[in-house]
């Protein structure tokens, strides 16, 4: 049995590697379709043909693009992501701090959003059709129906500008205490919680409702089991698959999809770094960022799959 799981996981990892390769190549092609290159972008208004040619040569941009891509790919496999075209710093150095920031924001949001959304989703499913269920439904719809930059901007105005309780932007480098942490992250985390929770709530509710209609749930009811026992011991373990899948999708959003939040709170994460990298056509940096996003997604999805497999004895 364990060999089966191992081979299944192995197969998944193989497919993930294939996906990574597809993404890398697609990003490479897309980057090359963009007008201009690092030399012209860096020189900006000063991009006279001679200047561009000189800089291009100095930066080795004259090598064929495919060659540069393959060189990056070969390096990436060994953990060396190369140096940035734009500022000659090692990509790893450029990304490290940003990556930690992104993970912190994602992690904190997950810590708040996941239990909250699961609780709301599960309780709404259990109390299906009640007033509570409707309130949760209307709230989730309301939350996903307002653009996140409106939510974020309003929050900043209210809590930072008028009430002055919280900082308007995130100084992640200045977190020295728990109070700092709470103050810095309060608004971005809450805004993101709004954004990701709605989807988790919907999916959780649907999955739990689905399992609640299973005969073994009726059986548990007919054994005299309490509502909480039915939900916790019978419904939840069997709806874990779709729930963790929804969680994985939502959490992967937290890695790459938070560009607007990063912009509004001036939060130095990798989404913004990638936007900058695209603007400067910094191929190694773009590739590495894309790799992180894709890897994050794949890791989450694979974990979700493995949890789904482990939670289901039939698949074990």
């Amino acid at each position, binding site marked *: 049995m364990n060999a089966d799981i191992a081979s299944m996981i192995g197969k998944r990892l193989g497919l993930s590697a294939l996906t990574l390769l597809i993404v890398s190549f697609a990003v490479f092609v897309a980057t090359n379709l963009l007008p201009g290159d690092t030399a012209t972008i860096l020189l900006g208004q000063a991009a006279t043909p001679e*200047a561009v*040619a000189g800089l291009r040569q100095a930066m080795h941009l004259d090598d064929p693009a495919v060659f540069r891509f393959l060189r990056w790919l070969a390096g990436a496999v060994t953990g060396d992501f190369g140096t940035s075209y734009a500022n000659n710093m090692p990509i790893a150095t450029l990304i490290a701090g940003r990556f930690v920031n992104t993970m912190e924001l994602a992690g904190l949001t997950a810590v708040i959003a996941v239990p909250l959304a699961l609780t709301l989703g599960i309780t709404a499913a259990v109390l299906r059709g009640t007033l509570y269920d409707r309130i949760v439904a209307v709230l989730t719809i309301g939350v996903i129906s307002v653009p996140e930059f409106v939510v974020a901007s309003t929050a900043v105005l209210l809590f930072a*500008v008028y009430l002055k309780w919280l900082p308007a*932007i995130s100084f992640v480098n200045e977190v020295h205490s728990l109070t700092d942490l709470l103050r810095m992250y309060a608004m971005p985390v809450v805004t993101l919680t709004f954004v990701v929770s709605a989807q988790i709530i919907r999916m959780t509710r649907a999955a739990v409702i689905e399992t609640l209609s299973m005969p073994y749930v009726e059986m548990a009811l007919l054994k005299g089991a309490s509502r909480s026992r039915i939900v916790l011991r019978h419904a939840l373990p069997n709806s874990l698959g779709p729930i963790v899948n929804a969680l994985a999708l939502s959490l992967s959003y937290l890695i790459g999809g938070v560009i607007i939040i990063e912009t509004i709170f001036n939060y*130095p994460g990798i989404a913004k770094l990638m936007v900058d990298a695209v603007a400067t056509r910094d191929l190694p940096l773009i590739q590495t960022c894309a790799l992180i996003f894709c890897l994050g997604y794949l890791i989450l999805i694979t974990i979700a799959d493995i949890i789904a497999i482990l939670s289901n004895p039939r698949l074990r």
Partner: protein
Amino acid sequence: MIDKITNWTKSDDARVEDAIRRGASRRELLKMMLAGGVALSAGGAVFGRAERALAATPVSGGHLKAAGISASNADTLDPAKASLGTDYVRCCSLYNRLTFIDVTGVPQMELAEKLDTKDAKTWTVTLRKGVTFHDGKALTSADVVYSLKRHLDPAVGSKVAKIAAQMTEIKAVDANMVEIGLKAANADLPFILALHHFMIVQDGTTDFSKGMGTGAFVLETFEPGVRSIVKKNTNYWKPGFPHLDSFEFFAITDPNARVNALLAGDVHFASAVNPRSAKMIEAQPGFELVKSTVGAYTNLNIRLDMNKPDFIMGMKHIVDREQIIMAALRGFGEVGNDQPISKANVYHNADLKPKAFDPDKAKHHFQKAGVLGQSIPVIASDAADFSVDMAMIIQASAAEIGMKLDIQRVPSDGYWDKYWLKAPIHFGNINPRSTPDIYFSLLYASDAPWNESQYKSPKFDAMMLEARGSLDDAKRHAIYNELQTMISDEAGTIIPAYTTNADGISSKVKGLQVNPLGGMMGYAMAEYLWLEA
């Protein structure tokens, strides 16, 4: 504030203060250099206030946080590559130039003790003595030669390679003296050497991440695209400077977030505030807006090689300059007269009147050009400040007389490379420059690299060269006046307004003055500011 003088801002106070403070030394300099002046539009009250302000002595210490407008992974501490305001601010805090432009627009000596020339062609730079880099090494002529020569190497990717190209000979005379030979006479070299890109770095430097300079601050932290922190250089050669213990600079790209951060007390300084946020800042106690109209502008360029002189004339008359200032700039601008030298520059031709907004006249020209009824594409982009709004205003005016303009908003990303100078009708965005010659040679000479409307006039070129080589100020005034008229009438660049930059500051921030090079005291504010306790 004195209510009666509506147009008077704190920055104007600062300008007067500075004029008073620096008066004596300036006269000295004027022996060789050109005269600068402050146009005083207010009466004695201004002087009174200025004197009061001066009484406040700088306070030493404190950590100042300032927010710029743009950040990128391409952020650099290499002065030659500096391209964004962010880079200039950082470089200014770490390095010095040979000369710098003071608040009156006049070059002052910085690392140079003096600049001498007889013919404006061969210049001798005598270096200030006793200046050391952050690592203790003394400044020598080798550093200067290295710093200037770098720009001639294409691999460096210098932004000012074109300008540097006129320095055909750069050599050390002795440890303390450098000789610069120019291709042709240029009396503006002191202005040129004041360009941020010509900051002096240590001889042989290739890794600029340490920010090793002679400047007022020593680098502590630098994360490209994120922030930098610099600490007071205790051995700084300018006595009494800097005032701050440390200076933190980062960008908040979102304009609202920048204002919010200021108002929330997260930063002391928010640069380039949107005019529409002005109300909000002024309404809050403890915050001020420092405005400066120093000659930055956003212009509509119509390439002359399209051979539609009547169309261009029509466009010049359909641009409602008042409305652009009122609606797009919300009063944060001055009417422009289609040439680049603004009122902030002493050579501004005040007699040259802007083209009147006259739809009938415009219609007449359009009819003559045979373009009425056609849909003419106009390229605008957020890359050129306010260009989209200006385009919409022009479009609405044109629509009333049946002239259909099709605005194409294109991405900021790649705009300068792909559209600017290339599209038949597009917007440009020019930052303040210190001399008319830089403007003209950059933008309007027949071989100008940024000839936005493909303006070519041998007469213009000749007159420009004449003025450049001349040390006679009256003559230059006369020539520059005429060149401005030529541009205004003949070129395809429509400059509807000179935009006003407004920096939002906490009232605790003192010492901020307006510099003709732009906001943030021409990016060099770090060493001059102090925080009131």
